[in-house]
């Protein structure tokens, strides 16, 4: 149980750092928020001790704002390709930063991030496996963010 608390804390710090430093988005922790139609899902896996995966579920409005802030683009000037690229990079940074905060003495191998635009709304959950998964929900003035970390066998 102690390890999962350490994971939760490191993941939270990582998310705040990445969103504030790179995307100029300030998040507030929130309870479970249903995400509307067209949610962006960006995920990445890491292998080491421990191994696992991290998935970001980003509301469409927040995803567009992240692109505009990162690339200094105007409203309406954001392409689907920009969104995919930024979401993948966000997953990559959240994961790498989390692992560094969690244990900088261990070297992890990261996969190439994946992206998909989900049809229909979603409600993220840790699947009831509190021991092996962490779910963090956030709210911003552009929409919600949910992050799910699942531990895997090394």
């Amino acid at each position: 149980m102690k390890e999962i608390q350490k994971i939760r804390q490191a993941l939270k710090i990582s998310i705040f750092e990445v969103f504030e430093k790179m995307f100029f988005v300030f998040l507030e922790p929130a309870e479970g928020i249903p995400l509307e139609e067209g949610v962006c899902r960006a995920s990445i896996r890491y292998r080491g001790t421990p191994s696992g995966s991290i998935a970001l579920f980003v509301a469409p409005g927040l995803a567009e704002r992240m692109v505009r802030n990162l690339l200094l683009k105007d409203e309406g000037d954001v392409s689907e390709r920009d969104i995919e690229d930024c979401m993948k990079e966000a997953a990559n940074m959240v994961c790498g930063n989390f692992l560094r905060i969690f244990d900088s003495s261990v070297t992890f191998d990261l996969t190439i991030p994946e992206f998909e635009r989900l049809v229909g709304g979603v409600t993220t959950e840790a699947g009831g496996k509190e021991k092996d998964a962490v779910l963090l929900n956030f709210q911003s003035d552009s929409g919600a963010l949910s992050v799910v970390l699942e531990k895997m066998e090394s």
Partner: protein
Amino acid sequence: MSFNIMIVDDSSAMRQVIKKIIGMSGFKMDQCYEAGHGLEALSVLSDHWVDVILSDINMPRMNGLEFLGRVRDHELYRHIPVIMISTEGSTERVQEAFDHGARGFIKKPFLPEEIKKVLYQVVGFKEDGAYEGNSEDPAGSEDLDF
């Protein structure tokens, strides 16, 4: 004096961000070449003169460390300073990058000032254009957890 730069990152968004930061920093940049992975970067090097390389580590086809090794092993490219910009910041991975010959290391997420500082350190110029010598000490490492 102005410099030709190459940014190697599989994320087009990240390449754009880094390019904008360098452009806005006042750094004297002439050409800015881009590559999506190490193999593409080697191809750019075979066709163009490049003064400084900024490279990600986690990339498809040829990752940043393998690319760095290929640059260091090449008679014509080995002198080109390479700065790694990566989310992968474990002590061992950073040391591995320096052992492979990286001249700087910047952790993502980064602040624009960090890129500017390491870039100037690596090329050996001050922001006012004065030359202060090309230090062999790795740049950016003072902020890392050694």
